[in-house]
Structures are given as structure tokens and as C-alpha cells.
């Protein structure tokens, strides 16, 4: 575990990029697929700016420098019986906390535990003037000023460098069990819908190749009760960690993979027989396509985003997005090819 404050170097690098008008991209350990092809900008690497700066288990709050690997944070908080609620993907185990904030990605428990943005309490950032700014804080309720903290979640590096982040934690559930049910996507949809209107310990769902996997987590008595009522068999063939990190064989193919986000409660009918895997109560669907054209989602209320082996098309940001960018990065040097 490293503990190094590299912020002096990082801020200096941004200051000089600002004064020279040089575009700059940010990189942790390169765990996530790049968003744009042939990125020719200089990369500013946060990997050395690493270490947990404050962790108080009794407060359920942790602060860490942006280059801190999520794996390290997970190890430390698990040892205290706690977890990052949104369980952000680490991909090759190298994903950093800064990358989790910048990408805004959340793990399989997102519908139940909230998103990475939801549990983010504070950030320290460097804007496009080279100023170090603190927003949010280390307490769970804070409404002083606009919520710039959460604006940085999912900002994809376009608003500046995240130097550190503070997250709220949750106690680890007493018991976690996975139930497997053989069923079609239509049946899986029905099962999941029945859970949405009654209290249960459901905290993860995945449907893939004719099997629905349900994760129950919480007080052991309640989990046992839910497992029994589900009438499925307890299984161990799906690793939720591998699902989170896209380490399942499904994600290994070098074919285009789309991330399809649907309105809650809508059934994705896979009429074109693409290979698909769904999570988040069936609302997040990973779709493999044989070509680079997106899967047809227009008839649903949802959208498809390129994720792996695909790149974003160059686009002009809309009116307010362009102004937000201008407000934080007046000379337009941060990730100029990315539109958040």
C-alpha cells in the first residue's frame, strides 16, 4: 500500500498545461476502456497519488487520494466489516477511486445500494485555472452550496482532475446468498417485478443464458427466509465480483459491447438474438453486436452507449454542457475529445 501525496506534481503539471494551452487527459492505471480512439493528448497519471487519507470506521466515512486502487480500499474497509455501497467496478483489479468517480460507474448492487454518485460525499479537484477546490465534505448531510461534488461523478475528466474523494460506507451484510432459477427472460422479468413492490433482502440480479441469479444480502435470518421463499436453489456458479469487474467470459470477446440502460420495469425483448447479459433488475443490459451498429433500442425508453471495443463519436456538447465545461475549464484543455 502506497501513501504518497503527489498533488504538488499534478497541480504543477496542470498549471503548465494551462499556461501552454496544451490539452491533457487523465489516467489512473488504465483499467477502463478508453472513450475516444487515437487519443493523442498528453496523459497525466494519478497512479502515484495514492493512499487512504482518513478512515474512521465509527463514522462510516473514508477519504482517499484519487490514485488509490479500489482493491486496496475494499481490503481495508472489509477488514472493518464495511463496504463502498455502490461497489464500483475495478476491472483488472487496478481501477482507482478517482476513476470510479470520473466514470461514475456502479456495481451490480446499484438499484438497491445507490450509485457511486449517491454515496460520494466530497471531492478535492483542480479546475482549468489550476485552482485546488474542495466541495462537499465528510458528513452525510450537507447542502451548503451547489452540489459540485456530484457533478464530478461521471464527468469523465472533462471538468478537471479529481485529487481526492470522500465516500460514505455501509456495514457489510451479515449473510450473502445467491439463488439460481432456470428461466426465460420473460419469466425473469416477472420474478424481478414481484420483488419491486415488497420488502426483501434482494441486492443483485443477473440474467444470462437462461438462468436468473438473485443475490440476497442482509441479516441472516431475513436472507434465509427470502432464499426459501424464492423457491430456487442456492448456487455458487456466478461470481458477483467477476460480474462487477467484467471478468466473466461473456465480456472477453473482442466484439463490440454496448451498454443499454432501460427504464425500470421494461422488458428487453431480444428479437435480433444478440448475446445479452442483464443486471440491475433487468434495467442494465450488456449487448454484443456483430457489427459496430448499435442494437435497436429505439422502441424502448432507453439508450445504448458504446462500451467496449467501440469509441464515442465526436459530438458537440449541448448548450448547457458547453457552458458548464467553460465554467470549469475556460481554455478547454481537459479531455478535449470527450463529451461527457
Amino acid at each position, binding site marked *: 500500500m502506497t501513501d504518497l501525496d503527489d498533488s504538488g506534481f499534478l497541480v504543477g503539471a496542470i498549471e503548465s498545461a494551462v499556461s501552454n494551452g496544451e490539452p491533457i487527459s487523465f489516467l489512473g492505471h488504465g483499467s477502463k476502456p478508453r472513450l475516444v480512439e487515437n487519443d493523442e493528448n498528453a496523459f497525466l497519471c494519478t497512479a502515484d497519488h495514492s493512499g487512504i487519507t482518513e478512515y474512521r470506521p465509527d463514522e462510516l466515512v473514508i477519504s482517499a487520494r484519487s490514485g488509490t486502487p479500489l482493491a486496496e480500499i475494499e481490503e481495508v474497509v472489509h477488514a472493518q466489516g464495511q463496504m463502498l455501497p455502490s461497489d464500483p467496478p475495478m476491472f483488472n483489479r487496478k481501477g482507482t477511486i478517482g476513476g470510479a468517480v470520473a466514470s461514475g460507474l456502479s456495481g451490480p448492487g446499484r438499484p438497491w445500494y445507490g450509485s457511486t454518485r449517491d454515496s460520494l460525499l466530497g471531492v478535492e479537484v483542480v479546475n482549468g*485555472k489550476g485552482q485546488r477546490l474542495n466541495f462537499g465534505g465528510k458528513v452525510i*448531510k450537507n447542502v451548503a452550496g451547489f452540489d*459540485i461534488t456530484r457533478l464530478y461523478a*461521471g464527468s469523465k475528466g472533462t471538468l478537471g482532475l479529481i485529487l481526492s474523494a470522500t465516500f460514505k460506507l455501509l*456495514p457489510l451484510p451479515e449473510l450473502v446468498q445467491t439463488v439460481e432459477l432456470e428461466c426465460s427472460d420473460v419469466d425473469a422479468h416477472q420474478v424481478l417485478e414481484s420483488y419491486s413492490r415488497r420488502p426483501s*433482502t434482494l441486492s443483485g440480479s443477473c440474467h444470462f443464458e437462461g438462468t436468473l441469479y438473485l443475490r440476497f444480502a442482509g441479516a441472516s435470518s431475513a436472507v434465509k427466509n427470502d432464499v426459501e421463499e424464492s423457491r430456487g436453489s442456492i448456487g455458487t456458479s456466478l461470481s458477483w465480483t467477476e460480474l462487477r469487474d467484467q471478468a466473466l467470459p461473456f465480456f472477453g470477446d473482442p466484439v463490440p459491447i454496448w451498454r443499454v440502460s432501460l427504464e425500470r420495469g421494461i422488458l428487453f425483448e431480444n428479437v435480433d438474438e444478440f448475446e445479452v447479459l442483464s443486471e440491475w433488475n433487468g434495467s442494465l443490459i450488456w449487448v454484443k453486436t456483430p457489427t459496430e451498429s448499435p442494437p435497436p433500442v429505439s422502441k424502448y425508453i432507453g439508450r445504448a452507449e458504446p462500451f467496449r471495443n467501440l469509441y464515442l463519436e465526436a459530438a458537440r456538447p449541448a448548450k448547457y454542457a458547453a457552458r458548464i465545461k467553460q465554467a470549469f475549464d475556460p481554455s478547454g484543455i481537459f479531455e478535449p475529445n470527450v463529451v461527457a
Partner: protein
Amino acid sequence: MKNTFALELLRSELSRHVVLTDRHAVRPFETDGLTAYKETPWAVVLAESVDQVQSVLRICNECRVPVVTRGAGTGLSGGARPNAEGVLLVLTKMREILEVDLQSCTATVEPGVTNLAISEAVQKHGLFYAPDPSSQIACSIGGNVAENAGGVHCLKYGLTLHNVVGLKVQTIEGDELVLGGKSYDSSGYDYMALMVGSEGMLGVVTEVTVKLLPLPSHRIVMLGAFRDLERAGECVAGIISTGLVPAGLEMMDKLAITAAEEYAKVGYPTEAEAILLCEIDGGEVEVEHHSTEVEKLMKSFGAFKIDVAKDPEECERLWRGRKSAFPAAGRIAPDYYCMDGTIPRRKIGSVLSSIASMSRKYGLAVANVFHAGDGNLHPLILYDAAVKDQQSKAEEFGAEILECCILAGGTITGEHGVGVEKIDQMCAQFSDEELEQFHLLRKVFDPYGLMNPGKAIPTLARCSEIGGMHVHRGELPHPELERF
């Protein structure tokens, strides 16, 4: 002059009965829930539709007239205090529940719908809307969004921010922003996060889609009575650190207990120095199990009496005292001033002691009633505005409490918003560069600064004028000096 022209436009575009300018007609709108701050609005528009909202915004933008948006006016920070030269845009007439969607477990409502009306409308489906500010019977969801309202159940269910999934927002430049929605994420910048808690400065919310949760099947409310305030504070940290997530965890001190008991007669132990109210909800087995643990913890931290309520009426009785604490304080003093600082939970005991010393220093009593599980304090400073200097003393006292919260590593407001009330303390919490970033962000949505001007974000000039010191990450210049 510009106002006369704006008024002509408002009257020609909107039905006459929605535009009020008569002194007697606009007088009832001169204050929100923070009654110490009053201002008579120049004009009031009681909007009945999105079209009317858009017209008001367009006219105000063209004529450079300030516009202050207001819901039910229950806010506690003066955020909806009118502007003497501006329009007060009131949204309480827009109160339709537009859709309850059981497939996605969401409800879509107009901004004037009251917080409680949502839960009441979906109760028959076994669902509820979780955030429940004390004013839930009256406060509107639009105002909840503008303030990022909390309540006694935020500890488990989160703030408004965590429970709103979609918004329609009208900008002063005439754009309708459709934000979020029924999917779990959206592309692009998180405008929703910006709008929630923006105190009416970035746009006007005209439609809100909220997440509905299944009503828990069981709940237990426990009251623990303590002879020592600090021990009760420690018990809060003790409960949280064991890994329990109570639905609510509230604390009241002696003065608050006595006032609430006199007012509501719910059987609170008036001999106690402090009480904790802890609600556990969920499945039957889980609730039984967790409440036994809480009971043990309360005993180990010195609770001399523990009341356990299992049936709904008993639970309601225990909560009724807590929920009537504010009006109860209103009975023991002519005026009270409610603060909203939030601190790390482990500092509860020490900050309460500091507040007690300040109380002696200013000669004003304080009743403490607050969301202990969230570390969100609500000291009620009791005073009498009719007595010379008491109002200004109470304000000074409040300001000192907030600075104490920042020093403890917390924030000046947990759920009530900055409004006009805490604007000076923003100078202590944020640096000039941070405040400047807020101003730049504001200009993104409101280039002329017409929406709720003078609230929430102080100008740098104001900060340098009051000469307050900026507390950087809990580090104050000259930490060796004693401050109360």
C-alpha cells in the same frame, strides 16, 4: 420603470387573477418559515401551468426583473424570502399527481404536491416516498427538491437527492430541461445533482419523478432515557459503529424533552438529561433481532429507562413528541432560531458542550433536538424579539454555533439550506476560489443573476466586508486560542 413594463407584459400574457400586486394581497407572502426575515414582494404570480411559469421566466429575463420561486413557504433559511423589486413565483397551485407507475415504482408529480400527499397516494399499493421532513404535511415536493430536504428517516433512506429520479426544469432562458428519468442512469453531466439543493437559483422545477419504496412490514420504535447528555451522544456513535442502520435515530436534550412533553403529553421521561429515539424497520425477524441489539447498547451506555413500542399507535406516540418539538419550543419562548449544522457523529458530545457554554455566554437558552444518526444538529436558540438586542444576540450565537460545526469538520447546513440566513457563514466554509466557482456555475443557467438573487452564495465583496475567517479543512488560524 422596467418593472412597470414587466407588469404590463405579465398581465397581458397571464390571466389577471394569477398576478397579484395589491399590498394586502401580497403581504401574506412576505416571509417563509424563517419569520425573522421579511420582505414585501413587488408582485406575486400564482402559477397554474408550465406555460405560465415559462412566461414569467421569459418576461423576467427580458426585463431583468428578479424572480424568487416559492412552494409552500415552510423553508427555514429564508430561501424563499421575496425580493422587493422582483416577482415571487408561487407554485402551490400546481398540485396534480400526474402518474403513479407501478412498473417502475415511481410517481410523477407537479411541484406543488405536498410531501405527505405522495406517500398517501401510493400507500394502497404498499409503497411510500421515503424523505419525510418534519413539515411534510405542508411542504411541497418542489421546495424539497430546491432545498434537498431531509427528515427523520434519511439515515437509512437518504435525502431528497437519493429519492428523486427525474425532473423537468424550466431555465430563465426559456429551455425546458428533462433530467434523469426512470432508468438508473443518464448520459452527460449530472444536472439533477446540480438542481437538487440549488435553492431556486438555477431553474424552476415543474415536474418531479420520485422513487417509491415498499413499505416495511414491521417496525419498532425505542426510547432510551439517559442521565448524561454526552453518554447519549456516545451511544449514537456506538449504535452506528456496530453496523446497524436504524431507519431513524434522534436525540433530544432536557429542555426539548420538557417542552415536548408539556406540549404533546406523550409520556417522555422529563427527569432525563437526554433521550434517544431509535426506529428499526424491515422484516419481522430482522427487526426483532436488531432492536434487541439496540436495547443492549442503550443499556451499556447508561440508559436508565427504555420504552419499546411495537404497535403502530405506540410508535406514533413516541414520534409525536419529537415531531412536535419545534412548535413546543415556540410555546416556551416567544421566538426561536433553529440552526442546522452537521458534524461527524463522534463530535456530538463535545459540540453540545460548546453550545452549552455559548448559551451561558449569550444568556440565551438552547433546546437541542436533532437527527443524531446523521450528525445533523438542530439547536433551537430561544429568545424574545421584543427584548432589545435579543434578535441580534441570537443571530450572533447561531453564527458561532455554525463556525463551531465547521471547526469540528462539518458543515453549516445539513438540510435546511443556506438561504439568507447562513450566507455569511458560507464565507467561512468556502474559499474565494470555491465561491467564484459557484458563481460561474450559476451563470451557466442564469447569466444575469436574476433567480433568487442574494441567497445561498455570497459575493466575494460581502465576504471581505464581514471579514469572517475561512476555516480550511477544520484548520483555523491560531488554533491555540480558545473559542466557544
